[in-house]
């Protein structure tokens, strides 16, 4: 009974320790090779242009390194210039708190051979400078490796996305109509009042 209890407690403590040990970016190895179609400095239009991605395992690493890889998730990540003065895009080593990559491109099961994917830049992607990063996740969904299209300092091979403005001609016209209605009805009521006051005197 006592040993059973001890076992349960120690298992529980080790589980706790396992989950509280947060994954950090610096602990990940760059074992994936990721390429993206945009050239450095190219400007893509949100909602119209495509990005073609290709990823595979870097064969220079020892075989068996990918034994824990179950899923690959590919993300669109902000380059440092688009993070400047914008704390909500900050890079933090602890992955759970990291806000560098906020736009998921695709999530696919892991295969060691070359995989490609074409993605149309979504309409809700903001206008900024980006690179692409792929994370390898284990069966628990925790990041175990990564690959990215830029260098370690995130300075090379960056591309831009030109976002939609969100404005529409119909909205502009509606705005103008309602504004005009507001002013005209105000003046209308005002002069009606004045006329009523004059006629009643």
């Amino acid at each position, binding site marked *: 009974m006592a040993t059973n209890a001890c076992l349960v407690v120690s298992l529980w403590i080790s589980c706790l320790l396992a989950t509280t040990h947060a994954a950090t970016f610096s602990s990940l190895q760059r074992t994936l090779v990721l390429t993206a179609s945009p050239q450095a400095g190219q400007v893509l239009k949100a909602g119209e242009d495509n990005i073609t991605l290709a990823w595979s395992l870097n064969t220079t690493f020892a075989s068996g390194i990918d034994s824990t890889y179950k899923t690959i998730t590919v993300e669109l990540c902000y380059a440092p210039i688009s993070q*400047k*003065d*914008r*704390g*909500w895009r900050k890079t933090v080593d602890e992955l759970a708190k990291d806000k560098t990559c906020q736009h998921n491109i695709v999530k696919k099961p892991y295969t060691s051979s070359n995989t490609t994917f074409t993605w149309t830049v979504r*309409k*809700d992607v*903001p*206008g*900024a400078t980006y690179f692409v990063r792929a994370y390898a996740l284990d069966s628990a969904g925790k990041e175990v490796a990564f690959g990215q299209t830029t260098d370690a300092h995130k300075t090379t091979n960056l591309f831009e996305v030109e*976002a*939609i*403005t*969100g*404005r*529409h001609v119909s*909205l*502009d016209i*509606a*705005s*103008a109509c*309602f*504004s005009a*209605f*507001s*002013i005209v*009805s*105000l003046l209308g*009521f*005002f002069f009606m*009042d004045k006329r009523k*006051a004059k006629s009643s005197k």
Partner: protein
Amino acid sequence: MAGIEGSPGSSMHGVTGREPVHAFSVASPIVPTDTTAKFDLPVDSEHKAKKFKLFSLANPHMRTFHLSWISFFTCFVSTFAAAPLVPIIRDNLNLTKSDIGNAGVASVSGSIFSRLVMGAVCDLLGPRYGCAFLVMLSAPTVFCMSLVSSAGGYVAVRFMIGFSLATFVSCQYWMSTMFNSKIIGTVNGTAAGWGNMGGGATQLIMPLLYDIIKKTGSTPFTAWRIAFFIPGWLHIIMGILVMTLGQDLPDGNLSALQKKGEVAKDQFGRVLWYAVTNYRTWIFVLLYGYSMGVELSTDNVIAEYFYDRFDLKLHLAGIIAATFGMANLLARPFGGFASDYSARYFGMRGRLWTLWILQTLGGVFCLLLGRADSLPLAVAFMIIFSIGAQAACGATFGVIPFVSRRSLGVISGLAGAGGNFGSGLTQLLFFSTSKYTTEMGLEYMGIMIICCTLPVMLVHFPQWGSMFLPPSKKVSEEHYYTAEYTEEEVQKGMHHNSLKFAENSRSERGNRIASAPTPPNATPNYV
């Protein structure tokens, strides 16, 4: 109190909500009822209502109340409508932290000036036109939000929408034409609190509208623009309702009001002088800047803070942020009540201590909010912070009526402007640069609240004392209030209303014996 129509500052009477008043009605012997008038509520000789019947829409008195506070509420909704949507807007317009901070400053700065102009407009055109003109002329500025495509445009539009907060002045002025001065305190206090709630309601309304519009198929960057049409329509609807259903006076006659207004019984110059040279005025300007001011600043940053720091969905961040502003429903009246209650036992000293305690409590919990790492703790601290800050707003206007009788209106107006100025300054210092994260900004704001509340210890009334010093035996209430008039003005008898007020204000001595004989022909000590 000086119930002279059109005298400088009379439009602000009752805004404090804590003047010696009978809460919801005033009985006949005190103010005689005009029995010939056919109104839903009992009225006095000027046909102003003697009773405040909250759940009635009776024309003209209660209808005016509801039209008035809802217009003010609508303007609060549109001024702070952008705040809960900032996480979407900042991506659409590629804003930096300083852009967002500057827009927040701009949203509260415009009304510093527009409130001053609105006073004059109400005097010239009447409160009905003042309210309707402002609400309907600011509707285009709300619609302009959907056209914005750059940081500069965003800041400019928020600045223009902010002008609409001057409906506060028209709201209070209009009600002073409709309600007897003995109940105007409660009426105006309720209207001010309920109007301020708009800053909380908008944090709920806008994310909800945004979600609904997105579900109908819009992209995020279009959905937020469409969401702004709703506050714009509210402006138009309220403007039309005010124009068609509202009237300036109980009898509906605007020109009569203007005739009376010509006979200003006091000189604006002297009223302003006595307001500006009373050091207590400036202490309360500072204090209100750190109770109302921090409330406005927090309205602007809190939703974004919860969205970013705790990774909440937009509408959940909005719900939490809304509880901050909605606390005004009860917290602000509570502050006034606490001030009155402490005055019963400890007089003015009680009022000052109550104010200091409430505002410092708000500051402490603002600091703790910045430090809170977990969501439940942050929400709990935010709620206590909101109660502290908003109750302090109510308690501030528990003391202001006693600072001056002659210049009450101007001092109330200056304090109100101080609130907006404090908000602009705080947002500029702590929430506009990447030097401080928002949590650090909240911490520093909390520290600044605590420091800027300390000057209340310097407020000394010679007839009642201060937080630490006892009253001076030689000075009575009459001395203090008559000191605001020169010898010639006293001889003209201009100070009579102040004398009446001084007699009523003896309650501020607390539990001690209330009556003290006024020495005749005594030279008032100007303090």
